[in-house]
């Protein structure tokens, strides 16, 4: 299958990886059996490949289902929001295509040039998402009480909150801790 540097091309690529790894694990399992091993021992010997096949299968499902769902949401969204949803979905696909470039080179017809183009597109997507980054996380609409964070509150008073929280440490309730008189001072006096 000719490689396409598109979301559906990447999804096909993940399916190719999953099929390739499943086939390899299946064959490995049966090759071990052919040596006279019973099925359980063959399974144990092939288990690293079997786990890899499952992971690849899962990535094929996540990429295909999520792309389909994000496109559906984008179709029903305003012209301002739709591209942002698609940018996030595409970023996810390309991130994993780049992470799994070795597998894609093994099991699909992707080339080094295609990978270089994906890298460029990935950097473009980061730049496209940059102006909306705060808006996107604001849209999670998580109240400060639920975030429970000095760094993430809506008002961005990061340093003030860090100091306010630090001052709540019970050690700050008194200027000198009793351990000074009990342990430090005797040590210093020796």
């Amino acid at each position, binding site marked *: 299958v000719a490689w396409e540097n598109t979301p559906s091309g990447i999804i096909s690529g993940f*399916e190719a990886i*999953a*099929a390739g790894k*499943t*086939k390899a*694990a*299946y064959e490995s*399992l049966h090759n071990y059996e052919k040596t006279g091993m019973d099925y359980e021992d063959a399974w144990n010997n092939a*288990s690293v490949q*079997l*786990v890899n096949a*499952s*992971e690849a*299968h*899962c*990535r094929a*499902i*996540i990429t295909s*289902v*999520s792309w389909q*769902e*994000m496109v559906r949401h984008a179709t029903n969204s305003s012209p*301002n*929001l739709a591209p*942002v949803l698609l940018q*996030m*979905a595409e*970023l*996810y696909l390309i991130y994993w295509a780049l992470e799994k470039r070795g597998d894609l080179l093994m099991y699909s017809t992707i080339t080094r040039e295609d990978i270089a183009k994906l890298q460029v597109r990935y*950097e473009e*997507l*980061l730049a496209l998402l940059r*102006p*909306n*980054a*705060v*808006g*996107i*996380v*604001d*849209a*999670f*609409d998580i*109240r400060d*009480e*639920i*975030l*429970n*964070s*000095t*760094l*993430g509150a809506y*008002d*961005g008073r*990061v340093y003030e*909150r*860090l100091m306010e*929280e630090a001052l*709540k*440490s019970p050690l700050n309730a008194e200027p000198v801790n009793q351990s000074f008189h009990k342990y430090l001072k005797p040590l210093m006096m020796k």
Partner: protein
Amino acid sequence: VCGDLVKERKKCSFDVQELVHLIDGGERGTKERREVENLVLSAEGFNNKDEVPEEYLSHKERYENAIRKACILYEILKKYAEKHDTMDAFKPSNKYRVTFGVVKDISPFMLHMGMFVPTILNQSDPDQMSEWLPKAMSMGIIGTYAQTELGHGTFLRGLETTATYDPSTEEFVIHSPSLTAYKWWPGGLAHTANHCIVVAQLYTKGECYGVHPFFVQIRDTETHMPLPGVKVGEIGPKMGFQTANNGFLGFEHFRIPRRNMLMKNAQVLKDGTYIKSKNEKLTYGTMVFVRVLIVTDVAYELARAGTIAVRYSAVRHQSQPKPGEPEPQILDYVTQQHKLFIGVATSHIFRVTGYWLWDSYSKVIKDVGKGNMDQLPELHAIACCLKAVCSRDAAARIEEFRLACGGHGYMASSNLPIINGIVTATITYEGEYTVLMLQTARFLVKAWKQATMGNAMTPTVSYLVKFSKNDR
């Protein structure tokens, strides 16, 4: 509001409220969620500004505080839920995440609503359900789910706790034959629950019929003292989940009535005759249910951690790449964007995938109710690998968010360490990563064989057909 965030919000090219509604599953969803949040977070007893932060409390105080808050929270949510369909509360989009605004870590009631109630719903017969469910829903009894033992977790057939039927008294005798047979881990088991679902090896007429669930009272409902023959306590501090009240539980020839075996599927008659379940896979329903919910749970934790890290990255300025110019926001560094945006995108991806999985689960369970089990193996396989991969990816992304916040991300007050602890635990509980992947692999191996034979395939593995042509 910090000037950097004001500028960032002005730059945004879309209507934030539109995306809020999309995430909540519609405007109505947002309205309801906010209603619950306002109700809970304005209640007395929570978020007292003079309160000592949870991190400074002792282990015991922290638990007691979590129980106090969880009880107030339950009362508020109960009143609210009375106006709504009970089952709606289980839908991933409707789960009230507001709990985190009350208890920073995990609620000791987590397993009550998360496992105890769903098991009663899925595995008890109509008479049992009508007796136990109202009590559980009203917190007349508090329960948990005791399956894992000190010596065995994943390998269910290896569980040692026994439930031996005595036809002379029409009772089961629950017994822990060794130290390794002690139940170990269930949340809320230590000092919170007075009942639990105990998974034990069923013996009747001298035969062992494998593991089955039993409804067991472990503490007196008046005094809360452990009942005679029950040894129960807490397992101690962990990497995270400090307020989950994880416990141990052992039995010494402890007797329960015959009707306390959950009998929707398999049954034991008065004379001890065992009636086999029509389909043994049905008993895995609760585990699948919880795995389905974990996918949307980790999506939400990614949203929390992502919000923290992105806002901080807009506020924080660092270095001077161009001499004479002000320090840029760290959000402008592409390496920072690389750390952050994939995590934020992953939250959306896991949420929509989790909802798709929930819809698939609901459809399959409906079919199972009509006696059609055809889709059950596929659902089990996909729920296993999605739970495993999503929890592990989420933990990696959250660690990346923490790293993106530099030293301040290591502060407990950033909340990233607690979120990290919560998500890391999901990789292990309700099915450990590798074990679940191998479960999916069993399905895949069978599927590949079918594909090479040119047989019709179920939807999630249909793609294998085109790649198996050469093997046909």
